[in-house]
């Protein structure tokens, strides 16, 4: 999952970015409203964390412009203002959630994950496709009750695919959503990870879960009749 943080306070941004990356999210950071707006409107992100008081362009306007372009990326607002009025205005302007400063880092992470889940149509932290179970809180994967040991990147690829069951996900999309701008983009990195992931998922007596569609991408299969 890839996330955009728009926050002008350098130290706060550093901390949030570090925490988000440690939980396995790809994070881009914009230090002002203009840059934030530009990045957000590319539609690459699975969630956006937006500070309200930004130089250049206020968080409120970034949000309004985003919604005007019919981008439905979930947005969590960080604010130091506490008036009920401004919260109501924000929610009406299209924000999905808000946290007031000083916030709890753990709460911020939990809320971001919940936002991403809900945006993808899932409401519990445990996702299941056929006989595969993925716990997004503990970041563990089980198949037929058997725990699988995945690397962080493999986990993230599987998490992304499991959020989009039956859809064809291209390598490009995986790259865009799993890596931030601080990483080198190599599509063969994805291929290598996918083949490792496939191997680890492949238990004896099961069918392969991840399909490869040549020149199109990958697809997580839901086996008929297995449930």
């Amino acid at each position: 999952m890839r996330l955009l943080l728009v926050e002008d306070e350098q130290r706060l941004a550093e901390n949030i970015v570090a925490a988000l990356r440690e939980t396995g999210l790809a994070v881009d950071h914009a230090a002002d409203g203009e840059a934030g707006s530009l990045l957000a409107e590319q539609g690459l992100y699975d969630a956006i964390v937006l500070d309200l008081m930004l130089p250049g362009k206020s968080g409120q306007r970034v949000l309004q412009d985003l919604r005007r372009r019919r981008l439905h990326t979930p947005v969590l607002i960080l604010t130091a203002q506490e008036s009920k009025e401004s919260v109501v205005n924000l929610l009406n302007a299209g924000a999905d959630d808000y946290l007031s400063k000083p916030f709890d880092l753990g709460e911020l992470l939990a809320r971001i994950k919940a936002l991403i889940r809900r945006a993808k149509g899932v409401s519990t932290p445990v996702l299941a496709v056929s006989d595969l179970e993925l716990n997004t809180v503990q970041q563990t994967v089980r198949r037929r009750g058997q725990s699988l040991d995945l690397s962080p990147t493999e986990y993230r690829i599987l998490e992304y695919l499991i959020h989009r069951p039956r859809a064809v996900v291209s390598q490009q999309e995986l790259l865009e959503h799993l890596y931030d701008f601080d990483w080198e983009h190599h599509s063969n990195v994805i291929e290598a990870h996918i083949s490792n992931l496939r191997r680890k998922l492949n238990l004896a007596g099961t069918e392969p879960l991840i399909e490869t569609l040549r020149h199109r991408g990958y697809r997580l299969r839901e086996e008929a009749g297995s449930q």
Partner: protein
Amino acid sequence: MKSSVSITRRLVATVLILELLSAAALIAAITVHEWSVQLEIFDTSLVATAESLMGAVQDTEDEGDNVMLDMRGVRLAKDAVFRVEDQGGKVLGSTGEPPHLVATTSGAPLFRNLRVSGRDYRFIVLNGTRIVDPGKANGGVRHSIAIVYGTPLRHVWHEVREAVRFFAIATAFLLGITAALMAWLVRKGLSPVHELAYEAERIGPGDWQFHAPESAKKTSELRPLAAALEAALARLQRSFEQQKRFTSDAAHELKTDVAIVKSSLQLLSMRKRTLDEYGQGLALSLEDITRLESTVEKMLTLARLEQPAERYSSSAASQTCSLSCSLRDVIADAVHQSKPFAQLKFIEVAVEINANTDVRLPIDSRDALLLCSNILLNALQHSPDGATVRMAVTANDDTARLTVRDQGEGISDEDRDHVFEPFYRGDPSRSRKSGGTGLGLSICKAICERAGGSIEIANDALGGAVVTVAFPVKVVASSTLSASLKAE
């Protein structure tokens, strides 16, 4: 409430009392006048009746030259008394018991007020001559007749009383109408006061808007009050809003700083880390806390400087000596303090002070240093790398001026109006990139105003901004200073 005074009632009462007094005076005058008029009429009728009595003295039908009183054709007033006598004292006719009155010798009728049988009477004494048989050769016989005639005065009194009563009733009626009319008019005249009060009553903590009603503005007596109210409320509202803005800005600053510290520590405790990572994390957290500390310190400094000045001045009066410091030393300290920052940006700080003068600032040396270093720091922050910041001190008899010029981008008109407001950073987002919390110049302003000085910022003709601080001071000429040192 019982001791309250009503202007309406007071005005009405005053006017009514005045009216009442003039009515009383008028009635007194009318009484006197009416009395004299009625008396004149009365006297005229007395004279007429007395003369008709005189005419009633007739020749008797006997051969003597005697006279008699023929009362036919004589009409007497009610309760009248009279007596007609001839010169021999013979009573020709009488009614009642008129007193014996002697006429004056001049022959003019005499009027006299007397009491007869318990009644007030007015008498006329008329002396006349009747000539019997004037056609005879000897010219007739002369009879001197004395007539005393009186009628009760009661009638005059009645007339006067009637007249006075009429006036009294008319006056009372008029007074009543006046009172009602006055009360209505005065109340109507005072309605702008009520409207003003109503308008003023609506002011509350939530709504500071006050517009004096038109009626109050048009009333010349109320105009100063309305204007004063409007001005006072506008001032209050401004300071209230300023206070509110300050509180919300301060909360924003503190929350942001606390959020940074909190997130730093929480990030560190998210999972087990190596000793090195803990060390780095703690160092960063310490930095974050230092920043929070400096924000709090600046706020407290500003709060201290904005304390009511009288406490400060009373203590200042007793320790004037300890509260003055040399501007030259303070500037040297400030330049020394900011040296690392200036070197980082390759900025040269040039100080020009006239060698012969030393200015003693009327403030605490700590505040003076804070003032100078804040202004210098501000100039350094707004200077491009490799520029020069010039500090200069000029002084005349009562004012010392410190000017600090930078070679930066100057200041916009909009910023100039707000740059001394707390937390103002020239950017609505309050970005901290330029450094500082936006309290530095506010602190400078507070220091200056406390000591009766002023601070302003303007654009230099050569580009860049120039901050000018002016202080009322005593200038110590170096020569006299050194002379006094020698004397010691």
